[in-house]
C-alpha cells in the first residue's frame, strides 16, 4: 500500500495541528484564521478542532497582534502568528525587530513566537502579494529565519520552530503550497533550525538555495546529470546560516552558485555570497554566480512574472557558464 501523500500546505496544517495537540501553550492568531481557515486555507479545520481560544481571529492590526504574540510568549505561551501575505510584514516590522529580536539579549526574556509568512511568486500576485521579503531579517540578531523548500521540511521546521525559544520567521512559499507533494512525516519529525541539508550530492559545483529554489535546483541538476555532477545545498534556515555545510560543499566542488527567488540585492543571496567569498576564497575556481530576479518589485502580468522569476532555463545557463569558467 502506497504511503499517504500530502501537500506542502497540508504539511504546515498538520504541523500546527500536532503542535497544538501536543502542547496547550501553542495557539494560532491572525486575521481570518478561524472559521474561514485563512486566505489559503492553511488553518482549515483547526478552529473546529481546537476552538476559539486556540485559533484566534483578530482585527486588521498586524502591529497589535504581533506585539500581543510577544506578550503572550513572555508569559510562557508559544503562539503561532499568521500574516495573510509575507508582504505585509512591513506593517509589524517594528514589533518584530524591536520587541521580538532584542528582548532576550537585553533582558533575558525568551519570546518563543513563530510568525508564518506566505511568500513568493508564481501566483500572479504582483508587487504586494508575491514578494520574498525574508532578506530584511537576515542579519537581525535575535531572530531566526526559516524557508522550507520541501514537504518534509515544511512539517519538520515548523515543529522545530514552535519548540524553539526564539522568535522564528517561517516563510512558507505560496507557489509550493499545492505543487509539492510528499509522504506525510511522522509526528516525531523535526528539522533542526540552523542546519542546512545536502539535498543532492555532487562534485562539480554547488548550488546554494532555499524555499522555491530547492525544487528548481534539483530539477535542473537532474537534467544536467549527464554533463555535470551538481550538489544542491538547501539552506532551510537562512539566518543564521549554516556556514559549515555551505563551506564544506564549496570546498569539495570549488564552484558555487546562489539561487534565490528574492530580487538580486535582497534575500539571503549577498550574505551567502559574502560568506563563501570570505571563507572559501582559496577553494574557488570561478567567481560565485547568482541567479535571482532583477532588482524590481514582483510584476503581475504572466509574461512579466515568468520572465522575472528564476527558471530552469536561466538556472541551467548560469550553471553551464559557471562550469565552463
Amino acid at each position, binding site marked *: 500500500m502506497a504511503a499517504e501523500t500530502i501537500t506542502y500546505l497540508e504539511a504546515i496544517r498538520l504541523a500546527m495541528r500536532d503542535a497544538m495537540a501536543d502542547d496547550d501553550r501553542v495557539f494560532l492568531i491572525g*486575521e*481570518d484564521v*478561524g*472559521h*474561514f481557515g485563512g*486566505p489559503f486555507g492553511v488553518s482549515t479545520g483547526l478552529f473546529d478542532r481546537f476552538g476559539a481560544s486556540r485559533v484566534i*481571529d*483578530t*482585527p*486588521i*492590526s498586524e*502591529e*497589535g497582534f504581533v506585539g500581543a504574540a510577544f506578550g503572550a510568549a513572555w508569559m510562557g505561551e508559544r503562539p503561532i502568528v499568521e500574516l495573510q*501575505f509575507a*508582504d*505585509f510584514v*512591513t*506593517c509589524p516590522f517594528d514589533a518584530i525587530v524591536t520587541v521580538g529580536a532584542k528582548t532576550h539579549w537585553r533582558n533575558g526574556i525568551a519570546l518563543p513566537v513563530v510568525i508564518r509568512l506566505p511568500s513568493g511568486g508564481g*501566483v*500572479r*500576485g*504582483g*508587487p*504586494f*502579494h508575491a514578494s520574498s521579503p525574508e532578506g530584511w531579517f537576515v542579519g537581525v540578531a535575535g531572530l531566526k529565519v526559516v524557508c522550507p523548500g520541501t514537504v518534509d521540511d515544511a512539517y519538520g521546521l515548523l515543529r522545530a520552530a514552535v519548540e524553539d525559544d526564539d522568535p522564528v520567521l517561517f516563510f512558507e512559499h505560496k507557489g509550493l503550497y499545492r505543487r509539492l507533494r510528499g509522504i506525510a512525516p511522522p509526528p516525531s519529525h523535526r528539522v533542526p533550525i540552523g542546519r542546512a541539508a545536502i539535498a543532492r550530492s555532487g562534485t562539480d559545483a554547488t548550488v546554494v538555495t532555499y524555499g522555491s529554489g530547492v525544487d528548481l535546483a534539483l530539477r535542473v541538476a537532474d537534467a544536467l546529470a549527464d554533463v555535470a555532477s551538481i550538489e544542491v545545498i538547501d539552506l532551510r534556515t537562512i539566518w543564521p546560516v549554516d556556514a559549515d555545510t555551505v563551506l564544506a560543499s564549496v570546498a569539495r566542488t570549488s564552484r558555487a552558485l546562489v539561487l534565490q527567488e528574492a530580487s538580486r540585492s535582497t534575500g539571503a543571496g549577498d550574505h551567502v555570497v559574502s560568506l563563501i567569498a570570505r571563507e572559501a576564497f582559496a577553494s574557488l575556481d570561478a567567481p560565485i554566480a547568482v541567479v535571482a530576479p*532583477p*532588482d*524590481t*518589485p514582483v*510584476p*503581475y*502580468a*504572466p*509574461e*512579466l512574472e*515568468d*520572465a*522575472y522569476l528564476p527558471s530552469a532555463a536561466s538556472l541551467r545557463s548560469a550553471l553551464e557558464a559557471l562550469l565552463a569558467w
Partner: protein
Amino acid sequence: MPGDPATAVVLPTTDDPSVSAERRIELFRVVLTHRVMEERIMTLYKQGRIAGSVYTGRGQEAVGAGAGLALGADDVCAPLNREMSCHIARGVEPAHIFRNYLGRATGPTRGRDGNMHFGVPERGVFPLVSMLGDLVPVVVGAALAFKRRGEARVALTFFGDGAFNCGDVHEGLNLAGVLNVPVVFVAQSNRVAYSTRTEMAMRNPNLSERIEGGYAIPCARVDGTDAIAVHVAVRNAVERARAGGGPQAIEALTVRLDGHAAHDDGRYMDRDLIAEYGTRRDPVERLAMRLVLDGVPRAEVDAVRAGVIAAVAGALAEAESAPAPDPADLANGVYASPLS
C-alpha cells in the same frame, strides 16, 4: 417587473433637490458601469483570462460614484478595491481599467500590477497600495500641499471598517485634524473585513461617532447604497474642506454582497443583510427607481443601460487588443531619476 415603482420592492434613492437631473443620470451611468464591468471581470476570471485575484464592489458602487462625482477636476483621490466607480467618476476610461486587469502594456501599470491596484496620475488618482491604511496619511499629505500653497483643492480617500483598526488610519486621521488640511475621508462600513464581521473586530463599530469623538472631525453617516445621499454628503464635505473647514468625513453604510474576492463565496455573511442589500438596497436599482420616479422616460433609462453595456463591451474589446508587456522593459522606471 424590475423598475416598476408599483410592484418593485426596491427603495428609491433620496430625492435631494440639489442634485440635478443630469447628475442623477450621471450617477446612474457610473454606478451601472461599475456593476457591468465587474460582471464581465468575474466572467473573465472564471474563464482564466484574468490571473491572480479579483475583488468586486457589488452593493457598494454608489459610494465611489457619489464621492467621485463630488470632486472637482483639480481635486485628487485614492480609491481602493471596492471603488472602481470612483475611477469612472473621475473620467478614467473603462478600457484603461480593463487593461490593468488584463495586465497589458498600455494599461495604467503597464502590466506591473493587477486588478484595482492602479492609479491614473493625470486624473489625480493615486494607485492603491495593498497594505491597508497606508493611503490615509498619503491623502493627508496631498491636502497639506494644497493648504501650504493656498490652493482651493481637496484630497479624498476611502477606508473600510476593517482598515479602521490599522494604526495608519489612526495616525492619519489625527494628523489631518492637527494640520487642519482639506481632506475628506469616506469610511466604507460594509459590516465585514474579509471573513470577519465588523462587530467581531471592534467594540464600537459606529465609526462616525468615533471619528467625531476621537479625532474631532465632523462625520456624517449616510446610507451608502443611496448614491444621491452619498453624493450630497460628500459634496458638502468637499465644499467645507475647500472653504477651509479642515478635514471632513462620511461614513457610508453598505453591505459587501460578494465574498472578499473571487475565490471566496462569502458563506459566512449575514444572510438577512445580504437579502436586504441585494434587493431593496441594490445601488443600481435604487437609482433606476429614482429616475423613473423623477419622470425620466423608461426608454431613456433603458437606453442608458444599453449604452453602458455596449460601452463596456467595447472597452473590453479595446483592452483585449492591447499589447502584452515586454519583459525587456521591466527594470525601467524603478527610479524617476535613474542613476547614470
